[in-house]
């Protein structure tokens, strides 16, 4: 493992990402579109709801619109991070293979991708948090940003694993959109969760802990540390999977 190679890799990956205008446009526009649609369509009726990780006795009373805004900020952070990660791993696989033949290790390339992705995940989380704070007041702003970073981390690592496993771009996007849509975009919504049968299943999905962490920080004074801890564990699980698959795919036989 060589630090100079990893730093060079990160710099080059970030340059490539920021030179793709369409990526930057998507990063800027998708959260605005999501949040504006919610702002324009969601009802303002106040409803009590429970958060799964806080126990059955604690009710939070907030307008439906606020819940939807926070929930969609989580969804858009996870979705964008996942797509970016998929793109980083898949798009230049042939040239990255050449770099491995020339001396890079597959770990160095994947680590460079992960660190470059971390910069992007933090930027997305900050941007989305600032955007959503224009629409509602967040109780614990920094902790809320941490929740968005965690969904980015979990879904980013899922994107790296998917990109390492699946060769086709369309198939990769399909896998990202499917999970992001069903898990982060639907099942983790507190309104759905509260009424779901067998909601234990939902607790095992990747967006559960990060979305709990973000929602707790947005609306309550409770601690989100357990949710953060399990989010990190979930992300690390995906990351180990990605490292294993990527290494086997990219290694050369010397």
């Amino acid at each position: 493992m060589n630090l100079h190679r990893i730093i060079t890799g990160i710099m080059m990956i970030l340059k490539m990402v920021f030179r793709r205008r369409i990526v930057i446009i998507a990063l800027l526009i998708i959260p605005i579109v999501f949040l504006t649609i919610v702002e324009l369509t969601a009802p303002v009726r106040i409803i009590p709801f429970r958060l799964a990780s806080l126990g059955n006795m604690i009710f939070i009373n907030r307008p439906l619109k606020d819940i939807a805004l926070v929930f969609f900020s989580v969804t858009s952070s996870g979705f964008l991070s996942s797509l970016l990660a998929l793109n980083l791993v898949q798009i230049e696989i042939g040239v990255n293979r050449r770099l491995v033949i020339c001396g890079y290790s597959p770990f160095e390339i994947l680590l460079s991708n992960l660190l470059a992705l971390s910069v992007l995940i933090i930027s997305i989380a900050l941007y989305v948090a600032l955007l959503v704070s224009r629409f509602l007041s967040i109780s614990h702003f920094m902790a809320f940003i941490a929740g968005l970073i965690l969904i980015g981390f979990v879904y980013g690592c899922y994107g790296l694993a998917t990109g390492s496993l699946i060769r086709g771009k369309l198939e990769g996007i399909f896998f990202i959109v499917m999970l992001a849509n069903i898990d982060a975009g639907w099942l983790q919504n507190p309104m759905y969760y509260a009424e779901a049968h067998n909601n234990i299943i939902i607790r095992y999905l990747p967006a559960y802990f990060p979305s709990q962490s973000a929602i707790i920080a947005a609306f309550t004074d409770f601690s989100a540390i357990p949710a953060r801890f399990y989010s990190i564990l979930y992300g690390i699980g995906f990351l180990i999977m990605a490292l294993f698959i990527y290494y086997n795919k990219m290694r050369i036989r010397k």
Partner: protein
Amino acid sequence: MVLLTVENISKKFGRNSVLRDVSFEMDQNMLYGIVGENGSGKTTLLKVIVGEWKPDRGSVSLTGRLGYCPQQTLLFSHLTVDEHFSYFAAAYRIDRVTLASRSNDLMDFFNFRKFRNEKVYELSGGTMQKLNLSLALLPQPDLLVLDEPYNGFDWDTYVHFWEYTGKLKKAGCSILVVAHLITEKERFDKVFNLVQGRLT
């Protein structure tokens, strides 16, 4: 001194035997060619030699630094020429001072220095091919493996390519060129034919 030993390499894709018991050795200061029709297994053989693919049987042993120029121009479309040299220099562990002098030499020799700040997607096919080749030459390899290296070259670049190859050979480098067509056989120390996965 033997730089490359290829011993009884066989490779199958499904039921299709692409390489069958391929063996040869390469010494220092040698220029070898491998010719064959499309689909004869040339690229597969090179990918096995550089370690990209594992043979089903047999072994490859290589001493010294390897330079590999793939058939496709494998480049990052959104990085500039200079950035490619920096990225690949990190892979080869080449320091900054050496990188500056070698990359300038290569760009001057193949006449594409004026494009050093252009991104790859802005370059012509020929310039991309020059960069593709220059990245293989950057580490001053002991063995240079070239897959269809002059596809897309204009006449001047083709002449320069052979001039550079001569310089490398004099400096002790061995070169293995794989092509579907080799016109100037007298330049080569040995030319193999690859027919249905066998070297003749």
